């Protein structure tokens, strides 16, 4: 018997391109590039983030680099603007990324507000998003969980809006279900939870809410066994998505018997 549990048409579409995986992964904080690659493969991720940084002059220029481990032909690279605290630096970083990756247009915009919270500076984020969209970039934007702002970023022309679930690297899980739901229900572009996931159940909850995907880094790279956690996250994303599509039962205050009442003895 063939039970249809997997719909191959249920794909994540970003900027016109379809992806089977709804788990997007970061590439920071791994022990080495080998672990980065093994965890990325275990996660089944097709979209992977990368940071743009100055080369280390004086070090071996021929040492293996990220793009050797995760070649752009095999993965969709998502260069980020991590570490930028204003729109000017974020736009510069995206232009460098586009040059680096031969005209690649897809970028992850994040403009941070301060080092303690790593919360986004939403004013600078809006400014940068406008400039980048006008400059022809496909912008996936990290933002706070504010539904009004999420809508504005969509209206500017961002191809995906990525609200945080909790602070970056905190592992606190989904702290803002109702804000996320409000964002999801009003969105016309993919909503991807970016930041805050700690373990597999957090990823499943995000997907059960109806998120289109989850982007995570620390939860995998910081686990004691990153490759195993990457596998767990892959399963959680798939389980959460299937549960969302299946449609959960309503919550009730009282019991509802699972066995028929009719025909009981006595």
């Amino acid at each position: 018997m063939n039970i249809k549990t997997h719909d191959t048409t249920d794909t994540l579409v970003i900027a016109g391109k379809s992806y089977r995986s709804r788990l997007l992964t970061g590439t920071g904080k791994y022990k080495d590039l080998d672990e980065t690659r093994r965890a990325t493969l275990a996660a089944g991720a097709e979209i992977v983030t990368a940071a743009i940084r100055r080369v280390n002059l004086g070090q071996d220029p021929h040492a293996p680099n990220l793009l050797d481990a995760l070649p752009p032909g095999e993965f969709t690279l998502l260069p980020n603007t991590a570490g930028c605290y204003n729109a000017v630096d974020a736009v510069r970083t995206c232009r460098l990324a586009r040059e680096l990756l031969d005209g690649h247009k897809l970028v992850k915009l994040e403009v941070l507000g301060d080092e303690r919270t790593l919360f986004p500076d939403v004013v600078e984020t809006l400014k940068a998003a406008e400039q980048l969209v006008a400059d022809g970039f496909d912008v996936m934007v990290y933002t706070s969980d504010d539904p009004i702002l999420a809508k504005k970023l969509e209206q500017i022309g961002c191809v995906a809006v990525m609200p945080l679930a909790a602070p970056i690297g905190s592992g606190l899980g989904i702290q803002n279900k109702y804000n996320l739901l409000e964002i999801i229900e009003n969105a016309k572009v993919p909503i991807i939870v970016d930041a805050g996931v700690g373990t597999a159940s957090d990823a499943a909850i995000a997907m059960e809410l109806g998120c289109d995907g989850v982007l995570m880094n620390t939860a995998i790279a910081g686990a004691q066994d990153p490759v195993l956690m990457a596998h767990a996250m892959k399963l959680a994303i798939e389980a959460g998505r299937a549960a969302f599509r299946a449609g959960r039962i309503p919550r009730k205050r009282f019991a509802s018997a699972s066995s028929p009442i009719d025909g009981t003895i006595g």
Partner: protein
Amino acid sequence: MHITLNGHPHDCGDNFTVIQLLHEAGYAGRRVAVEVNHEIVPRSQHGGYALREGDKVEIVHAIGGG
């Protein structure tokens, strides 16, 4: 000639081109992007782009990040 390379003072030959600078640093032919005074210098122009005294040059690449 004095320039600033990746935020540090750097000496190079007069009228050094971007490609000469990349050769000197060992990054010629590697996947890097170059910016001079906040403007991208496309790869196709590295050979013909002559640097000038005081230029601020950035050479960047991709590394792991979230």
